[in-house]
């Protein structure tokens, strides 16, 4: 059985940290206020709005030490990553999860944070949350159903999402643990001990700013690494800001995905609201879900 960290209650503390790219303190204010309005205490790490002049929010050791401290601090009940970018892979192998194993807590984020979500699933058998991060709270985003879906997830309310049908969907029903994240990171984890074990599970993927040929290549990496063969179902989120070359690739995202999974029989759905855009529902990684893809709708229900 997968370990499910305790859900939060009024007065619980959420640690806010940037384990990857740099983020200004101003950009997290709305997030902090909203979390406080939800009834939580917020502990803001020094990596947020740090003095770093580089891409990263701090040196590898500064980011690692802060994450380690938040993992080990029993007064912190969940860790929300401020943003992604790139950087978790540089220090994840230096983390000590021994205290976390005894006292698991929710680790929350997406994009580069996919490295944590996959590692927690495969190496630590612990559930986590793929969801909007601090920036999503800005510009009125805190009122959106997407940020609010995080609030519900933290409270332990079971999710039951419906999404619009798509003529390219492959109809069917599947149940299994929900896993997934950013496609570039899922490909990047192949061959490492953090890669998801995908057999019998429902996989979701999303990405941003990639060339179509590279999306094809990364998706084929998952296939050739055996990660697609025995899925229970596949949820394709939004692929935004896609790039193409002057010599066009000649296939759309649904076309290339359907070609590569043509030999498998599980349900597949497209344009599910998980993405780098506002449409990014909180998804509990590692928790059993029911995926139902019909002509009329997509339903993803936490069991």
């Amino acid at each position, binding site marked *: 059985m997968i370990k499910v960290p305790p859900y939060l209650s009024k007065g619980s503390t959420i640690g806010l940290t940037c384990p990857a790219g740099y983020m200004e303190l101003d950009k997290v204010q709305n997030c902090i206020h909203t979390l406080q309005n939800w009834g939580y205490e917020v502990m803001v790490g020094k990596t947020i709005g740090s003095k770093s002049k580089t891409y990263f929010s701090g040196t590898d050791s500064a980011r690692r030490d802060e994450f380690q401290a938040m993992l080990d601090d029993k007064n912190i009940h969940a860790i929300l990553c401020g943003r992604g970018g790139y950087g978790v892979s540089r220090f994840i192998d230096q983390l000590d999860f021994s205290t976390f194993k005894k006292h698991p807590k929710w680790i929350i984020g997406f994009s580069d944070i996919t490295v944590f979500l996959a590692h927690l699933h495969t190496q630590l058998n612990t559930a986590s949350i793929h969801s909007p991060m601090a920036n999503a709270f800005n510009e009125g985003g805190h009122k959106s159903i997407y940020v609010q879906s995080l609030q519900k997830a933290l409270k332990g309310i079971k999710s039951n999402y419906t999404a619009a049908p798509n003529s390219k969907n492959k109809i069917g029903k599947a149940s299994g643990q929900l896993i997934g994240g950013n496609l570039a990171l899922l490909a990047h984890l*192949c061959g490492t001990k953090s890669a998801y074990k995908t057999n019998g599970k429902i996989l979701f993927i999303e990405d941003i700013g990639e060339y179509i040929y590279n999306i094809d290549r990364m998706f084929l990496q998952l296939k*050739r690494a055996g990660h697609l063969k025995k899925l229970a179902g596949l949820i394709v989120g939004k692929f935004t800001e896609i790039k193409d070359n002057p010599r066009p690739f000649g296939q759309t995202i649904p076309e290339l995905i359907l070609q590569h999974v043509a030999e498998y029989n599980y349900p597949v759905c497209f344009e599910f609201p998980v993405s780098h855009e506002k449409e990014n529902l909180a998804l509990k990684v590692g928790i059993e879900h029911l995926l139902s893809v019909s002509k009329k709708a997509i339903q993803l229900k936490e069991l």
Partner: protein
Amino acid sequence: MGMLPFGSFAAKENNSNRNRIKIPPYLKKGDSIGICCPSGYSTMADIQQSIIQIESWGYQVKLGQTIGKRDFTFGGTDAERAADFQQMMDDDSVKAIMCATGGYGAVRMVDMLNFARFKKKPKWIIGFSDITVLHCHLNQVVHTASLHSKMCGSFPKDWAIADEIQVNTILSIKRALEGEKIVYPIISNTNNRIGEAEGVLVGGNLKILENMSGSISSINTDGKILFVEDVSEPLYNIDRMLCNLLRAGKLANLKGLIIGGFTSIKTDTPDSPFGRDIITIVKEKVDQFNYPVCFDFPVGHQKNNFALKCGLVHRLTVGQDAVSLQEIN
């Protein structure tokens, strides 16, 4: 105390200095070299100069069906590219296969290939960049040596006035195919890590090496000399790809590491520089190991991209003043 497990002992020996890779026969005058497109598309005009040169070396050229074919970015559909490559592998009159160009696409067709006949009658497969897919697969699955080198599009338009490096890199393909043992003296770099290494040479395009991770084609690099190169990637992504190799255990037990060209690196956004150059990025990954490392090796998406025999045992010597890579099979 039990007996020494002979099986594991033998396996260990295989991984270190015993090379069970098959070496395809070298070429003789009059032999045919096949040209085809397993990845991107190539027109007849694109490969014209290579045909003229290859024929002037005393070889015949056999053109595959995919030359001049185009399916968007690809040199024909996946099935067409696979069928053409299969035909080239199975045609006994073809003694080597030069890929016309890289681009993207080999990974879409490699699993459609049947290497049964090729295993019995191996031949040199030639190319780089996206062709790294084939080099990896040939090494790890088919156990056959292959040639990492420039391809048809890089042959000079006018041989008489082409610059010396370009001519020499193209001639390095000819020399390698004729069986001449490779010896490349290289200019030293102060960032190199001094040392000597002997092992099977493997490698290619870093993006493709990462793309192979987790698949059957991913090279077991233990006891080997690895070379890597790439083009047009941002620094953070080069770092991320090397992190994949590190975390997948591909860097821990190398005999030596060769860093080729990392050209046309995509610039950082000015307000958030990555803060490390290629040298620092590499050093961060391999500081914990002791094998020799050399930078600026002439392999990559650049003029000085010399032919390298993947799968053959080489000696890498990284000295204070001089660096050399020598084939010692």
